[in-house]
């Protein structure tokens, strides 16, 4: 190697797979990757980033999908002077055929640095590092191969969902179908920014929330059931007979004290009314307890990271909704929300912040959604009521 990277070399050691090895692997055959290595080593030395504030570049007809990036020492690293990323919308559930993955690799071999993130934390396949000139031809090849760009900027972002019914017994609706359907429906919103700020949608099939939707999505769809969870008492007895401490590990951990272990009759009793569908007993006794059969989802809104007013977890908006094609109820709700947000939101004001500013009450009124106690942990304590 003609690059000298003593600091990064340290990160080739140790048992966990090394990203440095990966860059070096590409650096052997790709100049941009080689300069990336150099820039990274320089940052490790200087302890500051060497990337400049984002550029604004893209492909024809889209306002999003590309993150422009320039190096602040282009003299030293001309081959990574421009180092834009392309966000490629992943197939729902992150399933790939090797055929399509190999196609992606080939395209990126031709037009980019050969480095990728599989995946970015919104969910896109991130193609990391290309030049402005390569953007359009790369994009053209991508669409040729059946891929499209995801969202960026003040647009709808790439929608993600958990693996769901594809490989999980608990999914209360078909997350992949929903994610795909919404993604196709809202192509325009994904590719052409138009709102005060970004908007994210994520869907998990059950309250375990394996895509962390509640923390990261403005519109959060989390599967749940409307009826009662199903208990197979024989299977329960099997657990107990095999030494599973059902009292300590399940009954006592039920957050709503809905379970009781009847030692005498060897029966797990459920006060169905009290179950808040937290999943715990199901999670821990996979063979004995299952969600109910009347599947659907709770819709929550407003999850986001700290900028500007602080982080928010999503709030319950619709306690239960059936999630079935053609998903009109969800689509209508989304459009209503966007319209209201777009009309009232300030620049860079996300949905939760706008609602906090204008009041949940007013938002509900605009949405035509009646207030229910399920929306709050508790009613107001202050007496400052608008009548």
């Amino acid at each position, binding site marked *: 190697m003609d690059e000298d990277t003593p600091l990064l070399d340290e990160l080739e050691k140790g048992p966990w797979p090394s990203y440095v090895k990966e860059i070096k692997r590409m650096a052997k055959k790709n100049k941009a990757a080689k300069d990336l290595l150099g820039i990274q080593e320089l940052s490790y030395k200087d302890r500051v980033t060497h990337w400049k504030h984002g550029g604004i570049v893209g492909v024809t007809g889209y306002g999003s999908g590309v993150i422009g990036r320039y190096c602040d020492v282009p003299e030293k690293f001309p081959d990574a002077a421009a180092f834009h990323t392309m966000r490629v919308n992943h197939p729902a559930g*992150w399933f790939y055929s090797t055929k399509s993955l190999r196609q992606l690799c080939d395209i990126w071999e031709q037009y980019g640095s050969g480095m990728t993130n599989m995946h970015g934390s919104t969910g896109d396949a991130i193609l990391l590092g290309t030049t402005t000139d390569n953007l359009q031809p790369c994009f053209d090849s991508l669409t040729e191969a059946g891929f499209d760009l995801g969202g960026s900027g003040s647009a709808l972002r790439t929608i993600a969902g*958990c693996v769901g019914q594809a490989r999980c017994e608990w999914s209360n609706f078909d997350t992949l179908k929903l994610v795909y359907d919404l993604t196709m429906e809202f192509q325009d919103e994904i590719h052409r920014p138009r709102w005060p700020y970004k908007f994210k949608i994520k869907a998990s099939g059950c309250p375990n929330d394996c895509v962390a939707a509640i923390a990261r999505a403005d519109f959060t769809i989390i599967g749940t059931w409307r009826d009662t969870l199903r208990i197979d008492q024989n299977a329960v007895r099997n657990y107990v007979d095999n030494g599973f401490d059902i009292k300590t590990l399940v009954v006592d951990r039920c957050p709503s004290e809905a379970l009781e272990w009847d030692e005498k009759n060897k029966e797990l009793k459920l006060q169905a009314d009290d179950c808040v569908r937290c999943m715990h007993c199901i999670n821990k006794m996979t063979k004995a307890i299952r969600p109910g059969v009347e599947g659907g989802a709770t819709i929550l809104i407003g999850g986001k990271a700290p900028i500007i007013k602080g982080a928010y977890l999503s709030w319950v908006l619709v306690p239960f909704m059936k999630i079935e094609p053609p998903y009109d109820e969800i689509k209508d709700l989304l459009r209503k929300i966007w319209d209201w947000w777009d009309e009232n939101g300030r620049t860079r004001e996300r949905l939760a912040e706008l609602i906090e500013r204008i009041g949940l009450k007013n938002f509900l009124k605009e949405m035509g959604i009646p207030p229910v106690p399920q929306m709050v942990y508790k009613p107001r304590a202050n007496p400052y009521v608008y009548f």
Partner: protein
Amino acid sequence: MGRTDIGPPDYREMLPDAIKMNYGKWKYHENVRAGVLKHVSETGDEVYTVRVGSPRLVSIDFIRDLCDIADKYCDGHLRFTSRSNIEFITDNKSNVNGIIEEAAKLGLPAGGTGNSISNIIHTQGWIHCHSAATDASGLVKAIMDEMYEYFTSMKLPAFVRIAVACCINMCGAVHCSDLAIVGVHRKPPKVDNEKVLAQCEIPTTIQSCPTGAIRRNPDPNIKSVVVREDLCMYCANCFTVCPAMPLADAEGDGVAIYVGGKVSNARKPPMFSRMVVPFLPNTPPRWTEVVDVLKKIVEIYAGSAKKYERMGEWIERIGWEKFFRLTEIPFTDQHIDDFTHAVETYRTTTQFKW
């Protein structure tokens, strides 16, 4: 001009047969061993998943290597998880060991299932972001090297989710992780007046500041802004909208550690992670101080929590005061919230431990 708005490939074309046939029919699953899941279908089918770790930032050759394994054992399909692990799925039990071995040859460990430490959700850092106050990939590598045994085993009381974000934009959704490492600045932005004129919208810049620290430059001849440094808490939000206000600084930048967040609704509702170490300097390449603190927390947690108790649930049970005592992390005034909803964190009871 090519086609536009075609959307991503249809997921149905991406599913292996074993999945297609049992789609929506799954009955239960078992954790066979660390890194191996067995899902059983109502049809009686059994499907095995081998999960292996990934550095996330990978080369195309890495992906091609994965494809080779998938072609050999998995019907030409594979998937990635929401934590950037790789999953090889097969309905042939005897493939499992082969997959594990071939992955091991590539240096990829099987694990991350059950009560383990799975892969770290992370972000761009010095690899690609102008906003970064630390590197992400390097931190992740350094941490996972140390946590390796927890990835490849399932011996913790519950799983521990780690996230790294290289700045407080928190692209890594650090705000709800069992353990979170976030890059922080500690110097206010340096305003370049000329650049402000050419590159920034002044009203947007002023509005961007959560604490109202930014004002127009009082000199009417200078079309720019000034920062009231006593009000600035280095969030870099101004820098996001105005490139003329960089904050990065080798001495000022470093990381903070947050703990006890969770996302799932299991048992306790989702919770935010909370600050336990306000600042540690950046010490690339191995961030030893950071790694040591994390390791210590995990070990104390492992020794003290009840089975199935997540980090945050454990801390809520024993109390933060006891957490600080056990971990011997000093409590400072920076731990005390002073942002918008701060008062909700102040203790309004005589109940506490020593």
